[in-house]
């Protein structure tokens, strides 16, 4: 049998071929040194890539904080009351609250933006994601 296309070998290593293609190639490489070598090289490369896949890319603080901040329900209820109160009484917009809540400018932009979305979709002015 002729050697399979090298593209096929690459997909073979990933087990991304049909069952019959997988069987044909695995039979072929039993008798073909050059294809066996090709597969071994590919497997070594892929095993190194798997190590690289596990590396920890240190996440910068703002994203990390977003992950770690747990929702404080007591503060949430208190703030919702304040926000609704201020909307009803003073006619304040809750973006003002957001600005006060978020000292970090980047996050502030992000959350204001995402709350804008929520408000436009469902008019839930009281749904704040989290704060410290």
């Amino acid at each position, binding site marked *: 049998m002729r050697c399979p296309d*090298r*593209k096929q070998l*690459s*997909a073979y290593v*990933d087990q*991304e071929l049909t069952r019959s293609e997988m069987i044909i190639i695995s039979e072929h490489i039993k008798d073909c040194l050059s294809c066996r070598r090709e597969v071994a*090289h*590919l497997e070594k*490369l*892929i095993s*190194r*890539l*798997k*190590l*690289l*896949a*596990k*590396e*920890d*890319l*240190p*996440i*910068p603080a*703002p*994203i990390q904080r*977003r*992950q770690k901040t747990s*929702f404080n329900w007591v503060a*949430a209820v208190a703030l919702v009351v304040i926000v609704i109160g201020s909307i009803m009484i003073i006619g304040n917009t809750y973006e003002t609250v957001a600005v006060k809540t978020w000292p970090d400018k*980047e996050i502030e932009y*992000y959350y204001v*933006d*995402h709350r804008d*979305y*929520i408000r436009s*979709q*469902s008019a*839930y002015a009281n*749904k*704040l*994601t*989290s704060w410290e």
Partner: protein
Amino acid sequence: MALEERLADYTLVQGLRNGDNEAYDELNQQYSSKMYRLACRLAGPEEAEDLVQEAFVQIYRSMSSFRGDCSISTWVYKITTNVCQDYLRRKSRRNWRHLFSIDWLKSEIDKELPSPDLEPHEMAEIRDDLGRLRVAIASLPMEQRSVLVLHDLEQLTYQEVADVLGIALGTVKSRLFYARQKVRQIFEGGASK
């Protein structure tokens, strides 16, 4: 997609559409580090954080158009990849070395190597290999880098990569093959020195 996964996705999407706080927290918790890692690998570390934020905003905005014909995970990868690719197109005149500084590429691989009983020189060899691999991946053209990163690093299947990038399965197979060829040239070239 398994039934439990679809149910979990459905619940999450409903939560997000209702502006439910816990749903946002869950989305952040599940995906922000994956998105950040993907952005670093596709577009370099310099703008990765901004790109992730832009991707989150786009996710929220497109919530209403999510029809559940792919998993949330695929959808998140798709939006993040699109944001990174748009950014790379805007920066197309810049050499990859400007996106991925050598310092970053060569920085100490900060993780536990899986076999602690390795000899120090073997550990050093693996670290060296990984450093060279990072350089090789960074130097790939964007289309090839996207396929290799999504498949070989993020461990998506061919079908998932095809869905994320909106390309045919056969294209995934051939792009991945060419990407690996190039990476191997650099990787094995360095190893024989």
